[in-house]
């Protein structure tokens, strides 16, 4: 794998994710607008659809919160993982910050000093999975604070009902998380595994199980609505991922994602790269 290919692929997936929504996400918003019964809620969804059109026409970021640089890397087990992996992706983030451009969002948590280029300790954040094959798939998943701030994790009692808990908490929080939201749910594992399951649930959206659909119905029954102004469309998608947990534990994590469920992927091979 050539270093310049990985840098170029990183810039390209960030640029695409920031300006063009995945078609299935736009379609989900369009369907919600068609179904919505509250006029104020419908006006919010129509503005969102107009915004999506302008961003892709003008090639400008959908949202001024261009997020923190989160990437999902699916690394083929037969790939010789290059020594420059992390540095090349960080280079791509710095270039994208200049070229897209992205708002410099990454600050030191204590001094609040801005690094200026969206990179630094812990950033970009790389979520790594090993898969079959001999190439690298890189997905940009920029994460804005508006939805990340309202995500949550709880160590429930095994006797509690985790789905009721999630529905109630999401209904309370979604209005401030730029609803209609996508809801990634991680149930089980340990404290930190539950959080990673929740983020992976977002990466694997949309959910397809009966349990996913039931929870979506339950959240939308409560009427928080787009932007918390009341209405039918509180959530557009739910996905639940689980792992075994200790017999004495019930960790539950929810990673909220705003309507702008931005992502874009590319595949990098030995001899080049291409957007998926």
């Amino acid at each position, binding site marked *: 794998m050539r270093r310049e290919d990985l840098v170029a692929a990183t810039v390209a997936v960030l640029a695409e994710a920031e300006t063009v929504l995945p078609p299935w996400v736009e379609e989900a918003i369009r369907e919600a607008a068609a179904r919505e019964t509250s006029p104020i809620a419908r006006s919010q969804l129509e503005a969102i659809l107009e915004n999506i059109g302008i961003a892709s026409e003008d090639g400008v970021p959908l949202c001024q919160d261009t997020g923190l640089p989160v990437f999902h890397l699916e690394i083929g087990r037969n790939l010789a993982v290059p020594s420059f992996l992390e540095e090349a992706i960080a280079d791509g983030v710095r270039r994208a910050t200049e070229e897209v451009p992205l708002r410099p969002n990454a600050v030191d948590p204590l001094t609040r000093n801005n690094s200026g280029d969206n990179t630094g300790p812990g950033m970009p954040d790389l979520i790594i999975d090993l898969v079959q094959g001999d190439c690298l798939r890189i997905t940009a998943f920029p994460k804005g604070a508006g939805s990340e701030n309202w995500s949550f994790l709880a160590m429930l009692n095994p006797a509690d009902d985790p789905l009721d808990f999630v529905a109630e908490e999401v209904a309370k929080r979604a209005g401030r998380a730029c609803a209609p939201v996508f809801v990634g749910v991680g149930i089980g594992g340990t404290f930190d595994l539950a959080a990673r399951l929740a983020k992976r649930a977002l990466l694997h959206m949309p959910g397809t199980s009966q349990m996913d659909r039931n929870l979506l119905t339950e959240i939308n029954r409560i009427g928080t609505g787009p*932007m918390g102004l009341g209405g039918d469309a509180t959530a557009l998608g739910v996905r639940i991922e689980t792992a075994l947990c200790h017999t004495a534990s019930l960790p539950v994590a929810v990673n909220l994602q705003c309507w*702008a469920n931005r992502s874009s992927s590319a595949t990098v091979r030995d001899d080049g790269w291409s957007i998926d």
Partner: protein
Amino acid sequence: MEHRLRTPISQEEVAALRVGDLVWISGTVYTARDRVHALLASGEELPVDLAGAVLYHCGPLIRDGIVLSAGPTTSGRVGRFTRDVVDRGVRLIVGKGGISEDAEALRGRAAYLAYPGGCGALAARYLSVRRLHLPDLGMAEGLWELEAQGWGPMVVAIDPHGGDLYREAKRSAKRSSKI
């Protein structure tokens, strides 16, 4: 009802607003996020006059003096400074998500308008840069003086008479919840 307003906003114009009304704004809009609010609450003099002003909870994406994307940021983070802001003369606050119990500080004096969150590219079509105050705070946290031309529609989400769409949505949620 529809209102096309130009800054500075008068007391009468604010008093005419009711929740659910639509508003379009022309004139000067000041951005303010966490750090400008913290300065203001500490009693610091700001380099702008906020009498009759429109304050926008926003950290825009701006390049070479062009507004590229400028949707609202979550108002809940700065809601506790609402009284400080209104005391300085701000008559309209534009944001997303509402300000919960801090809405009481608006009563009789100011209104809160909801602009759809995430709609940064859309807002940018109506906004241009006049100047950046407090540049040391950086792009997102600085105090941008923007020029708005027919920017909207925004929904009056909290009016100066105690109306609050967020509270209404929560109330109906309690009624429909099985618990």
